[in-house]
């Protein structure tokens, strides 16, 4: 498996970061960076990572199944992760999540039919003082009211523009 030049450069830098006899250290970030490009940790990705790091598929499976950001199936083009943990919950995080389900017509871990959006209720994302908060892919959105959410969705749907964190 070959990845884009950008990803390959990232992976190359990554592998150089660790002592030579600890190549395996690159595993978790490597899986995440590849997932960013491929969309999921597919069986082919597992095979590729095994080959690159000299480890067994079981060792990769143990790790993939442990970390909550790693997934087997592709998410939507815009993966919306809404925090409902305590700080966000206190300021409407749970209600925002319910609103998002209705708005997108999907449930937790669902993907819209057009593959544009996927939704996930996530644990604390480190935006406690600026809740309710969500991430679209890696971009943060703070103080998200239901109205702001609707605008965000329309904007994403309309032009697919990448959002920047505040």
């Amino acid at each position, binding site marked *: 498996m070959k990845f884009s030049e950008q990803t390959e450069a990232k992976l190359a830098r990554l592998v150089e970061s660790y002592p030579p006899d600890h190549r395996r250290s690159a595993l978790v970030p490597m899986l995440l960076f590849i997932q960013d490009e491929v969309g999921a940790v597919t069986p082919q990705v597992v095979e590729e990572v095994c080959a690159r790091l000299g480890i067994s598929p079981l060792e990769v499976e143990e790790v993939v199944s442990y970390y909550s950001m790693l997934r087997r199936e592709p998410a939507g083009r815009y993966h919306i992760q809404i925090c409902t943990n305590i*700080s966000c919950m206190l300021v409407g995080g749970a209600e925002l999540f319910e609103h998002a389900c209705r708005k997108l017509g999907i449930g937790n871990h669902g993907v819209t039919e057009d593959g544009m959006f996927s939704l996930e209720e996530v644990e604390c994302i480190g935006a406690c*003082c600026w809740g309710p908060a969500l991430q679209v892919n890696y971009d943060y959105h703070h103080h998200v009211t239901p109205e702001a959410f609707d605008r965000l969705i329309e904007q994403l749907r309309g032009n697919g523009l990448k959002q920047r964190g505040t």
Partner: protein
Amino acid sequence: MLHPEPHPAEVVLLTRRFRLRDSASIDTYLATEGYQAFRKALAMTPEEIIEEVKKSNLRGRGGAGFPTGLKWSFVPRNSPKPKYIVANADEGEPGTCKDRLLMQYDPHSLLEGMLIAARAVGARAGYIYIRGEYRYLIEILDRAIEEARRRGFLGRNILGSGMDFDVYTHSGAGSYECGEETALLESLEGKRGVPRLRPPFPATSGAFGCPTVLNNVETFCAVPPIILKGGLAFAELGTPKNGGTRLFAISGHVNRPGVYELPMGFNLLRMIHEVAGGVRGGRKLKAVIPGGSSCPVLRAEECDVAMDFDSLARAGSMLGSGGVIVMDETTCMVKAAARILRFYAHESCGFCTPCREGTRWLATVLTRLERGEGQPGDIEVVRNVARNMLGRTFCPLGDAAAMPASSFVEKFREEFEAHLEGKPCPAEEVAIHA
């Protein structure tokens, strides 16, 4: 994310560059005494550096509050193995979002803190283990590392001193448990985030089985001012045994939530009412979790307390990671407890029995209670299961789940009973009438 001006009660030391233009750039950093502390450290012996940190009474900002200087002194100087510096940037404790700002607005202070630690213990490489969700911060840090390399602060023969040291970012991928230092090291080595048996401690056998200094981001960021201005000056900002300032993330039902740098020992009520602008909507304060979701909850009347490790311990809670979660009178305590326990059940690594089974059990019972499906005896089950977990799990995650569970039911028992008896939730009653 930042208020335009710091609050007058704030003591801006670690946050002093936050509001500068291009605060993350090395030019800004250098223009504001950046890397001066490291230059000074180069002229000091390792023992002098550690002594200075000890004098500062700096205690770990991740949650456990272990004295930093002491931790550094455990690294065996004569070990033939390479030594490593690891920054714990896996900020994941609900209610905590301070390291995020430090890395976003002042990444070089983290690098400088790590450099000084490297100088103190003779390390050649450092890693910043950063949670996967903080991707944009990895980009900021990578840029900062690149800048520092270009200016000769990282790499070989740093500033002609003969010292070699480099720093690498390392992304996590979604696991609260990786904030526990030995689970973090496992993750750094490409494994599941399952904690290691101690001893050996990371100071003697950490990353790649080598001596390792592992500290929270804020802890490292506190090191440059300590070296530059002296340990005593830092210590004097706080209370005895609790040196310096602390970044408090105040979230929940306050008018001005945010991250504030306040002296250790700052009064909690003042923090809420004065710094954070008081309880939202003029409502009554009901409860506060003072140090991130794993700390026992305080009732409003218990909140007249100094925010330092020792005072909070006396009050039956903990300073933890400095995440102050404020709840007003409309907050359903059953709902809050259930949400917190669902989090710990989700994040338990599953390695040891009481945490794996206990968090799941607690989350299930509390969620049932929240839904009004409680059964007689549920409250006792929660108290008892929490008690059976406390102090008996492999790592502190079990305690982190047990403490909120037992404190919520014990301090707000009447509310749990109301849910059990099918009565209206007292908090919702308040909300309706408010």
